[in-house]
């Protein structure tokens, strides 16, 4: 046979193809899962989808950023009336629920013996339908509102039997409605306008963290704190234990547990007497009812010095727009309702209704069930009265105090179906587990506040074989009062909203606008006139007695800024975000007063066993002065037994210690118990804390200016004093852009939104507890808290300062870090050899070294931002001022033949900040916001004496006298 040259080449080609080594794929390639993109999607282009956050009942507006078919970032929706552009850490971490390694991927059947079988949807639905028996069906869910609530109610109504929608939400706004019923005899809810207040007194309301709508309140509080007409809002906090919110107060005092009503009513009495001029109706009745209270008694009961209470009272009575907030910790102890009633009375007498508080009548008030009602529901399950139970977005096995009772009751329910995104303790008790869409994958219509119709829209195709819960309910059983498809239902609901809000407009063309802006709302909401007081209130008041201040320690369970009611515990960003006040990560220590520590010979990190109500948990202690000596406080978060890989299990679940006694007047869960016993164990474990010292050591990192001086300087239009330094080297030239950031320390409240936002935006790896203990956390931006010496603390976000005279740049032997022509200090990962000299020489210690190869197991890799370069082990990294966002803005500007506009570039941290503390812009543009702010009289830079000339300029905090 003749072997031609041609066939030789052919065989050679075939041979080499056959022998080619298999290509191994690194993590980089996995950033682009879709080789052929879906139609209408341009690869590399970000798309934004407005939606609503469902991580807590607040209902903030969010924007989902989609790149190449993946949601890679959640940001606040600047147009949304609730959040106004900011977003809290929990909201950002919703992505980690969507891309959770423990996401349920297909229907699961759990047999009696606990064996799990994976099913197809058809098989699962067939099986469920065949097991459906007539009888009572209940949907046990977390707080739902808007269309989803309507759907569930309608679906249940048309089902035969006495069915019920059980909303179990341990942290709810019920107290508000209950209290207004007592005070005004109206089922109305209140909205607080912190932005209009000139004096805020918070009694245990942690409004920057968990209370009601933290993003909204933080935003409004920052507005109130701005210096206007020589005034800025003063903020005083009274509480039994400290919190992030209390740390932000101008004055914060620790009070004895149960002393709140006495304080509030004494203050009310003082104002009633001082303001003899104002027209309070029924003045005599008030005077009579408030007669038993006095500041002296209040001081005695609470342990707060009389002078302090008198000062608060006189400030309150002199303020023309004050606001008293009472909630969370206080509202949820056994005299919680009394406290909130007292606060409402104080607000009423101070004349705040119509000024800083508005009441509105709403058909969709918080309908979460009282724990007393939920108890009865559990009893009805125990009595085999419920035949089918559907579990949705709630985890009472974890956050309901009667876990064992509930577990036993659940065993009595013949058919239990769980609709879930990830496994949790309650879901694991179901017979069938059906994977449902995450809120990023589905449609919805939320109504977090009356008149705010907030859109939930899918940003991506479902990543697993999940379905919308409504869809599943319809395929289990069609309802006569509901359309045949969920799509039609949601369409109808929105059409109804359109008819209600803008009757003149047509549905069609406005739909697109609505999709873009994220819902419909009217910006003007009128304040109700001052309501009239209910007669019954005085009976209520006369029934009140002065409390017995407990002599033995009480145990307080606190809502967590990071994990809320425990639901955040499967998200690594939240565990690695340092706690707001003590900077601990990956644990929820028990906070105790030094007196208790001394009595039990405890030091930080010693593990104690806490017992109450026949249950015991273990947790490490953390000693703090910022707590009442008779209070032991612990945040919710740890102690999950079946909540995925991220949950911390060594520390116990504090809710399990609570007794099931509930507030006598509202029926709500009491987050305190007074039978606590604390015992030392032999164990001890280090609490990983990221901050080395809370004392500034005279380094003036956080600077403040007294209010009086600020007023004077403002009136004189003073500018920042410029210090001249001699230079040896020629200065860098920035011909077009000179990027800079201004951080307003009077606005920063240390909430940590920027930190989580940066983790999400820049693919910053999570390192875990052990590595944080060893000082290897990777956060590019961090919140430093320093004690100011007078009991207050202030916060400072610290990131790469992009110095003009950067100490890091001169010492790198390979030019891996250098100065850009736009004033950025850039890090070239590819060039870095890892000498770490730059980190040593950085006085701000803003650089992070990759001690390990970062890992993102599937599907968490889908969250990675493809604009960000992958940093392998051995490479230094740090804040880039989100240079990829700058690049994008410059590209857009170039196409349009202009320069980047002010405000067009927003780094992730600045975008997510609820208080707007961070401003970014071009210093070369004299009209830009930053150009104006850097010359502000409050402007300074950290470690000015080092002459590093940072591009991050801080504005001094304002210190209220």
């Amino acid at each position: 046979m003749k072997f031609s040259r041609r066939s030789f080449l052919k065989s050679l080609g075939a041979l080499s193809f056959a022998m080619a080594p298999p290509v191994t794929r690194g993590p980089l390639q996995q950033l682009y899962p879709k080789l052929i993109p879906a139609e209408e999607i341009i690869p590399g282009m970000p798309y934004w989808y407005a939606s609503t956050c469902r991580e807590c009942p607040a209902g903030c507006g969010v924007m989902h950023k989609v790149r190449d078919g993946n949601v890679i970032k959640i940001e606040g929706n600047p147009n949304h009336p609730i959040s106004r552009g900011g977003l809290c850490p929990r909201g950002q971490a919703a992505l980690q629920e969507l891309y959770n390694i423990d996401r349920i991927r297909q229907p699961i059947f759990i047999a009696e013996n606990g064996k799990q079988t994976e099913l197809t949807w058809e098989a699962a639905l067939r099986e469920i339908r065949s097991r459906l028996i007539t009888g009572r069906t209940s949907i046990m869910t977390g707080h739902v509102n808007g269309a989803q609530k309507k759907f569930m109610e309608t679906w249940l109504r048309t089902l035969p039997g006495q069915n019920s929608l059980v909303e179990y939400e341990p942290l709810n706004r019920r107290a508000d409605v209950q209290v207004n019923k007592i005070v005004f005899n109206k089922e109305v809810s209140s909205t607080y306008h912190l932005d209009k207040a000139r004096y805020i007194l918070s009694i245990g309301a942690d409004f920057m963290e968990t209370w009601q709508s933290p993003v909204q309140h933080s935003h409004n509080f920052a507005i109130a704190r701005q210096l206007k007409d020589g005034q800025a809002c003063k903020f005083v906090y009274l509480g039994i234990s400290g919190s992030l919110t209390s740390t932000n107060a101008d004055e914060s005092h620790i009070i004895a547990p149960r002393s709140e009503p006495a304080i509030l009513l004494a203050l009310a009495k003082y104002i009633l007497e001082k303001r003899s001029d104002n027209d309070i109706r029924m003045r005599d009745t008030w005077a009579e009812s408030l007669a038993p209270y006095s500041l002296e008694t209040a001081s005695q009961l609470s342990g707060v010095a009389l002078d302090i209470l008198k000062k608060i009272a006189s400030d309150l009575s002199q303020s023309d727009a004050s606001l008293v907030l009472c909630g969370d910790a206080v509202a949820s102890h056994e005299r919680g309702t009394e406290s909130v009633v007292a606060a409402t009375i104080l607000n009423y007498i101070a004349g705040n209704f119509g000024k800083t508080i508005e009441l509105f009548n709403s058909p969709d008030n918080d309908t979460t069930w009282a724990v007393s009602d939920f108890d009865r529901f559990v009893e009805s399950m125990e009595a085999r009265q419920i035949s089918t139970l559907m579990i949705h977005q709630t985890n009472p096995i974890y956050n309901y105090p009667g876990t064992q009772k509930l577990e036993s009751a659940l065993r009595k329910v013949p058919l239990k179906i769980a609709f879930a995104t990830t496994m949790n303790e309650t879901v694991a008790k179901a017979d069938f587990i059906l994977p449902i869409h995450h809120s990023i994958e589905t449609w919805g219509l939320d109504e977090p506040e009356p008149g705010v119709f907030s859109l939930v829209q899918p940003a991506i195709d479902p990543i697993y074989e999940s379905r919308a819960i409504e869809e599943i309910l319809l395929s289990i059983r069609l309802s006569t009062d509901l359309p045949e498809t969920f799509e039609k239902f949601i369409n109808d609901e929105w059409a109804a909203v359109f008819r209600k809000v803008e009757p003149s407009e047509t549905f069609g063309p406005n739909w697109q606008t609505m999709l873009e802006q994220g819902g419909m709302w009217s910006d003007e909401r009128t304040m109700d006139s001052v309501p009239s007081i209910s007669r019954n209130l005085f009976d209520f008041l006369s029934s009140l007695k002065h409390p017995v201040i407990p002599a033995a320690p009480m145990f307080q369970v606190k809502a967590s800024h990071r994990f809320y009611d425990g639901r955040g515990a499967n998200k690594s960003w939240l565990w690695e975000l340092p706690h707001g006040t003590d900077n601990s990560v990956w644990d929820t220590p028990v906070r105790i007063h030094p007196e208790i520590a001394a009595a039990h010979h405890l030091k930080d990190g010693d593990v104690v066993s806490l017992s109450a109500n026949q249950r015991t948990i273990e947790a490490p202690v953390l000693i703090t002065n910022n707590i009442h000596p008779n209070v032991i406080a612990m945040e919710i978060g740890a102690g999950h037994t079946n909540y995925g890989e991220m949950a911390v299990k060594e520390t116990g679940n504090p809710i399990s210690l609570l007794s099931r006694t509930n507030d006598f007047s509202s029926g709500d869960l009491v987050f305190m118990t007074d039978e606590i016993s604390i015992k030392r164990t032999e164990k001890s474990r280090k609490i990983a804390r990221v901050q080395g010292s809370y004392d500034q050591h005279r380094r003036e990192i956080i600077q403040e200016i007294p209010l009086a001086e600020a007023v004077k300087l403002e009136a004189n239009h003073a500018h920042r004093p410029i210090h001249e330094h001699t230079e040896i080297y020629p200065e860098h030239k920035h011909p077009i852009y000179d990027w800079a950031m201004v951080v307003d320390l009077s606005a920063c409240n240390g909430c940590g939104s920027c930190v989580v936002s940066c983790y999400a935006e820049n693919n910053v790896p999570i390192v875990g507890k052990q590595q944080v203990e060893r000082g290897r956390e990777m956060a590019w931006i961090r919140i430093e808290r320093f004690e100011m010496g007078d009991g207050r603390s202030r916060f400072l976000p610290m990131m790469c300062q992009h110095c003009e005279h950067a100490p890091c740049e001169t010492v790198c032997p390979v030019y891996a870090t250098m100065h850009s022509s736009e004033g950025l200090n850039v890090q070239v990962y590819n060039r870095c050899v890892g000498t770490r000299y730059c980190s040593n020489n950085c006085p701000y210690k803003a650089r992070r070294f990759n001690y390990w190869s970062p890992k993102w197991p599937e599907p968490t890799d889908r969250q990675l931002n493809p604009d960000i370069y992958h940093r392998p082990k051995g490479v230094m990294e740090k804040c880039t001022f989100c240079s990829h966002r700058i690049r994008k803005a410059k590209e857009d500007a170039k196409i349009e033949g202009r320069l980047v506009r002010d405000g067009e570039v927003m780094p992730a941290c600045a975008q997510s900040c609820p208080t707007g503390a961070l401003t970014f812009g071009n210093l070369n543009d004299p009209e830009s916001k930053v150009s104006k702010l850097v010359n502000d009289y409050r402007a300074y830079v950290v470690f000015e004496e080092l002459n590093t000339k940072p591009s991050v300029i801080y504005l001094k905090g304002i210190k209220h006298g």
Partner: protein
Amino acid sequence: MDKENYFAPALTAADINSRVAYSTQKPGVKFYLAIALFLAMIGFGAYCLYTQITTGMGVAGMNNPVAWGIYLTNFVFWVGIAHSGTLISAILFLFRSRWRTSVNRIAEAMTVFAVMMAGLFPLIHLGRIWFCYWLFPYPNARTLWVNFRSPLNWDVFAVSTYMTVSTLFFIVGMIPDMAVLRDRFTGVKNKIYGIFAMGWRGTHKQWHHYETAYMLFAALATPLVISVHSIVSWDFAMSILPGWHSTIFAPYFVSGAIFSGCAMVITILYPLRKIFKLEDLITKKHFTRLAQMMLLTSLIVSYSYLTEFFIAWYSNNNFEQESFLYRAFGYYGPYFWIMLTCNMFIPLTIFFKKIRTNVKILFIISIFVNIGMWMERFVIIITSLARDFDPYAWGQYSPTHIEWGIFIGSFGGFLLLFFSFVKFAPVVAISEVKGQIHHDMHGGDHD
């Protein structure tokens, strides 16, 4: 000019030849056991390094803020040790110190091997060791260049220059002695020694060239003794860290290096002369001279310690003051006091004649100084980093088994090289000693 007789009386040239060559005879079991131990140490170090390269720097103890740990401590420690060799061979040669002849070979060998170990540590310390060649300015298509402003880059040149010069100096210095060994052996050994002898015949012309070359190398190496450790000190002094940023660092480090180098020479000489029966050639007087050198440098180092604290107090600089208070009384305080005891107080005993003429006690002192000088570098590097400007980022560092393993490995490497050298080459400069003895016998001084 000192006119002391440093050797045992009545040594002939043949005595010297045989005594020096004694060490090159066939090794015994003990030697092989020692070699096995060193190989095991190297193996452990290599395993640790392998683990670090494959999993990441995280296996070491470094963190934020302490991004430099004992790798850099070891680097400075080994570079320091490398200093006495060149000092003894070059500077003392130029100063015509006659006592150097017996010890210079050992000191030079120590220098070369210590520099080899030192040179490894900046590489081991790199996050991406596989790109270490980027530290050299080599022409490339992307026109990437190194940053000549970075002291680390100066280090690259300083250390590589020092290594080249000291190695050449070492090899050149051995030429006549290699010829002696060549002539004593036949077969393969003859061939190998022949290569190192470079055709040495001992002609007058060769001696002339040799001495000129030796003198030139000595002159070249002398400024390097000063420059290398000055540059190493600038790794720290050129940064802005309190506790590092100081103008005293160069002389402080150079004297510290000579201090530690002399100590290491004593530590090595003592057992060596016992094992290889070199008491006639390396006498008590040599030890005394080395001890005196140690005392002098110890005083300079002590002065530097005090100056640092004085300046911190006098500057009224908050950062400096706190940094030095932390150094003495903070978490790492005990290490500081160990350092002070070993480097400042113990060497003071050398002032007593009884002590400086007691070889055994000098050996013990030298070990303390070695420990103290390692501790000095540790204290300077770690305490300054642990607490710098921002109290938020304060933290602590402790080395892991990986770092200790690599440190042990470097000792294994050093000792293996040294033992091999002892078996292979003349440990004492035969020709120089001969010259010296001849000189002494025939009435003295040329000067």
